[in-house]
């Protein structure tokens, strides 16, 4: 197809007072190699990409939203079961994971900056640290899940309500014993726990896979010559996954840390 776009004159209005000289670059219609022909300008392509990623994140908000509602409902219906179930979770591990994920997000933000100012080494190392902290999160999650497995907290056939019915016999002195049917409801907590952290972990694993691919491309210099959209848009995804965890942590770990106090 003869490249009709190249013959079309740029259609951008001429800027006068508002913008500094650096913006004239866009008006000269210098296209990066990754320019797609159905877009008129770089700016349009970049904004469209960003907007598209945000729309995708909206779908993620609604997807997790269903799980959050289920949590809201059952926490209120079975509060007495959710409390001891939640108290079993480890705050040091959960808190550390929160800090780790925030740090991973910080490095992702630095990576976006590095791509924008075209510093390839900083970009590459930031992406590496983003990945490292992401993996650390997954590892700690794995340790926690293993812990839950060992204690019979996986909902289903292997579930063990023993420590909820008779906490003192399991060395737990600050929970009140639950009647058997309420103790069974702790399974719902753990289903939501595994469901929500599992869904979150799945999103992280997908993100880590994409991150590896982006890292490889970053090393080849693809993102430090003006084309930053994939790093930017992946950053949006990564921060969103981070935000989900920022809500999961208090909701799952910090329901009521002093059940027998006062």
């Amino acid at each position, binding site marked *: 197809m003869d490249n009709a776009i190249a013959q079309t004159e740029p259609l951008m209005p001429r800027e006068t007072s508002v913008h500094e000289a650096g913006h004239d670059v866009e008006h000269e219609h210098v296209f990066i190699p990754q320019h797609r*022909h159905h877009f008129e300008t770089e700016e*349009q392509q970049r904004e*469209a990409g960003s907007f598209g990623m945000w729309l995708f994140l909206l779908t993620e908000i609604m997807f997790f*939203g269903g799980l959050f*509602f289920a949590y809201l409902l059952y926490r209120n219906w079975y509060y007495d079961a959710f409390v001891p179930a939640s108290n079993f979770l480890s705050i040091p591990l959960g808190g550390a994971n929160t800090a780790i994920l925030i740090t991973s997000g910080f490095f992702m933000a630095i990576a976006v900056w590095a791509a924008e100012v075209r510093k390839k080494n900083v970009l590459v190392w930031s992406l590496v640290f983003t990945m490292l902290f992401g993996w650390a999160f997954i590892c700690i999650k794995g340790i926690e899940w293993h812990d839950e497995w060992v204690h019979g907290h996986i*909902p289903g056939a292997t579930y063990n309500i023993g420590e909820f019915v008779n906490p003192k016999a399991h060395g737990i002195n600050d929970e009140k014993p639950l009647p058997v049917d309420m103790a069974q409801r702790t399974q719902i907590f753990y289903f939501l726990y595994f469901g929500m952290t599992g869904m979150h972990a799945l999103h992280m694993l997908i993100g880590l896979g994409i991150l590896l691919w982006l890292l490889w491309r970053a090393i080849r210099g693809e993102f430090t010559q003006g084309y930053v959209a994939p790093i930017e848009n992946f950053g949006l995804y990564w921060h969103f996954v981070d935000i989900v965890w920022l809500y999961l942590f208090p909701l799952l770990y910090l329901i009521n840390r002093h059940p027998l106090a006062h």
Partner: protein
Amino acid sequence: MSATATTIVNLPDQSTATIPKKNYISAEHGLLSWLLTGDHKRIAMLYLISITVFFFIGGAFAGLIRLELLTPQPDLVASDTYNKLFTMHGVIMVFLFLVPSVPATIGNFVIPIMVGARDLAFPKINLLSWYLYLVGGVMMIATMVLGGVDTGWTFTTPLSTHYLNTHVITTALAIFVAGFSSIFTGLNFIVTVHRMRCPGMTWFRLPLFIWSHYAASILMVLGTPVLAISLVLVLLERVFGIGVFDPTKGGDPLLFQHLFWFYSHPAVYIMILPGMGVISEVVSTFSRKRVFGYTAVAFSSVAIALFGFFVWAHHMFIMGISNYSALVFSLLTMLVAVPSAIKIFNWAFTLQKGSITFETPMLYAFGFMGLFTIGGLTGVFLGSLGMDIQLTETYFIVAHFHFVMVGGMLMAFLSGVHFWWPKMTGRMYPEALSKLAAVVTFIGFNLTFMPQFVVGYLGMPRRYHAYPPEFQVLNVLSTAGATVLGVGYLLPLIYLAWSLKYGPIAGNNPWQATGLEWQIQSPPLTENFTEIPIMDHEAYDYEWLEHKTQHEVTAVG
């Protein structure tokens, strides 16, 4: 053939007319050029073929249902099989036909051209959409081959999670995948409409078709994920037995329904809004008059999308929600009828004092306006709590949604296919035959579904294959109508395919319509425009069109 008092069709001189040599179909050859295309027009054609296939599969199930219902006894198929028939009919028709019908075929084709762009914002994601649709469709076929699913398309818990052993998981996964197809289509449309309009194309110069699709796309993006999570929870419940919807383990089956209907009610607006967009275009073109109350129609599309999110529990009035919340949802349901009615009024006023002609797309549009009004009004009956207790889960509901979806949406789809067929293929179809098909469809439809209102009101439950003998006459009428309807739907398949090779050459603008898509060649170039247009007139500006055609040379090719 040129315009006369009884038709506005204006075809080029057939002795010298040809299909333009360079167009999106001839641009590249080979199967891979189609399967790996980024061209929105080719993707639209791929969708058209796939959707038609699934429509006829869903239709076959409908035929079997109606065949069983000829007699009051359950004599054709076993109960479980009957349950599978209506479930598969519903799932295929809703998720694999109605939801993608107009947006993925006509929308994909014309939206970029209507806004003056060379393609949608994300062509590769557009192709991905189609592949996801295919994967979902193939998984549905797998379900059928493996023995089917019988939960009803609504997957009501705890039936679907605890009491049935059919292929719920495969179906749920199929719908999950098809849902992403829908999400990506909607995402693409939203970004395109916001960021890819040509210079001069302000929001209020856009064709109303775009407004309708924009509103439907918002629903697709925000609503579909909630369907996804509801299906995932059903899956987890079936696989792991966690108890989230199981009353014996403390779960609430209604939680599923809240999540399911949070999507499935907006889904009906996802299905109908694009059809309404088609009707706006068709009614304007065949009345030679701008749509009355453009702003009202535009805003009512968005209002339908917004209010559509607030009414979902009217599908759950008898399921165990609280009376107070039922009251709230009932009131909001009354409100959501208003914007739809506004559109009908505006189309009616568009017709008033217009120069009306009765080409096939217009016949379907008239059918839409009448049948959708009836279907919509019966929706209001169902929205009032007292009536709903009597009418829900009867054939009244079945008739209601078939009036809006088949009498409404499917007619709008056919109207749109016939309207844009010359643009998509460069050929016209045989007018006499197409008008016959439209009339046959209308007659068949009324014969099929009008008796169902009566029989539902009299108390015949839905989803039952046995019924009291006094309902037989009405059921026989309904089945007879279904046969006629089937003929009405088969006819277009035949003559549209015929027209591809033997139909008259259409030229750029056989309907003398406004809109950017009618100012370019038929079929269009791959890049749509040789130069990006600059929009300098309002939508539906027939004076501009007349002024322009006066200055045009009437050469062909």
